[in-house]
């Protein structure tokens, strides 16, 4: 049931392509206004800086995230969902609020990244750990 629910939800969220996208989005749900460098965010989430930079770009591109930086600044001010939050955000956050739900989402995203077609009704795949820095 959860597997089906995960894929139905992800079908609505074209923007998320990678587990890092998901973890970054969830980070900004908890910290909607963050003054940090991308290095610091990467350290907090346990991803490589390059991978995290790509996910930041994804969220910025779809206007879920805005970022401001001063020429001499070491950090950027990230503001998440400053306008209206998309309607899929609330069910996504709810699903990811449990460990099982979050892992199911991550695994489904991992499959997407690898081009594995979703198995409707099948079990969630094995646990995936964040990429090493």
């Amino acid at each position, binding site marked *: 049931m959860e597997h089906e629910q995960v894929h139905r939800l992800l079908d609505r969220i074209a923007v998320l392509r990678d587990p890092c996208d998901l973890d970054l989005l969830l980070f900004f749900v908890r910290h*909607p*206004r*963050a003054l*940090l460098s991308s290095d610091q965010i990467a350290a907090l989430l346990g991803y490589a800086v390059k991978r995290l930079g790509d996910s930041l770009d994804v969220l910025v591109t779809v206007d879920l995230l805005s970022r401001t930086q*001063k*020429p001499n*600044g070491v*950090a*950027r*001010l990230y503001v998440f969902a400053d306008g209206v939050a998309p309607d899929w955000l609330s069910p996504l956050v709810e699903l990811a609020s449990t460990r099982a739900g979050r892992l199911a989402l991550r695994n489904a995203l991992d499959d997407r990244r690898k081009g594995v077609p979703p198995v409707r009704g099948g079990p969630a795949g094995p646990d995936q750990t964040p990429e090493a820095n």
Partner: protein
Amino acid sequence: MPTTRDVVKTGIAGLDTILSDGIPRGNIILLEGAIGTGKTTFGVEFVYHGASKFDEPGIIVLFEVSPDKLIRDAAGFGWDLPALERDGRLKIIFTTRQVFAQELQQADSLLLEEAAKMGARRLFVDGVAGLVDGSAPSGLRREPREEFHVLVEGLQRENLTALLSLELTAEPSVGLPEESIADTVIRLRKEEQKRASTRSLEIIKSRGQNFQMGRHSFRMISDRGIEVYRRVQAPRKASRERAAAFDPATRVTTGVPGLDPIVNGGYLLGSTTVIAGISGAGKSVMACQYIAEGIRLGERSLMLTLDEQVPQVLRNAMSIGIDLQPAIDSGLVQVVYDPPQEIEVDQHFHRIEQLMAVFKPKRVVFDSLSTYAASFATDGQMFRDFFHALVALMKEHQVAAVYNNENPEMLGMSSMMGAKGMSSLVDNIILLNWIELGNVFRVGLTVAKMRANPCDRMTHECEVVNGQGMRVLDRTMLPQLPFARYTSLLSRAPERSVLAGPSDENADNRR
């Protein structure tokens, strides 16, 4: 230079009074305390009230606490932070200490630009310990004092009233560098009292204003937030000091048949009366009758009890024919119970002050003074300070206050107020004693002191009749040998008077 005092009200209940209305605008406030003392709640409430009550938008800067948890915890106090964010009156920014310290040193700081864009007047930074830039090359690192100074300079440029919380791992024996640089220093404490913990707040310093020194108690209350209670010893308004006397003309009748004639018609308005006696002698009965007399005369009356809960007081009153419930329902009487276990003196006194200010009673009964003394058992000075403050409060409101005081001695009394040494504060003292005559304990009432009034100091017999209450009997018209025929009634060994004649023998046979 501004000529009028421009202060920032904290909005925290009770605190602005202690701060002489608020903190001078632009002051850098250091809020220090150990883990769990309430620093984050204090800081959030400071910013919340600014944005919601005083039209002063604010920014909260967090380093470790997740904003969603902060929002959740604030909701528990009834503070809707997301609503303020939506209205542009609040921004919660998550960052690191390193970034924050660097930001404040830059002229084009993103943080300060955000503050300027929203017109922020208040800033709360949760946890400034460790703001030293550890990433700087060792040769370029500054001393902690210098680092804090740089931080303060950055904040002062923006004319923000900034509250910076600092976690203490131990009570500092000497001033911290941050304390000398900050304009205002507030220290929060958790104090262990036997097995209980209470919170207190002390203003260590505050430039540009007067404030009330010492440790004031505070609580964090669900749906309300922080409430600060001025320490009971702190001076109140001058009118309270001036009112330390009683009205020499207006009498307040006691409600006990036979008692008014021997107290010159009643207690004077603004006077302090102590009824002292062993448990069971009739003190609480007298208290109920005093309140019932107030009801009869249409006078607002308050009973503050630590010994018995309200239903028990009502039931006891009913047993002597006094139904307090209709008077409570009509607002003429209030019976208030405060549990004596681990009583917190500042908070308790604050509650009494509020009752006096709002209810404005003419009669007040405290049942009992001895329970207060027992609650403050290890701190006699605290009890004396509390009683001093209570007497002054009652006199300010021109209340005829009656305090029951249990005397532990079963027969006779060697001291009117035990070891409390408070009798000089009391205007009237009435002693209730058991007197053993034959095989019966009878009750004797002696008016031992009536300040500025004549007082015969004779011992009168009393009786408590089921369904009727107490009455003071005539010394000569009794169904049994009257007290007048005895000597040494309070000596624990009373004797028949040698003047007893034949008629007295008849009287003796009536016993």
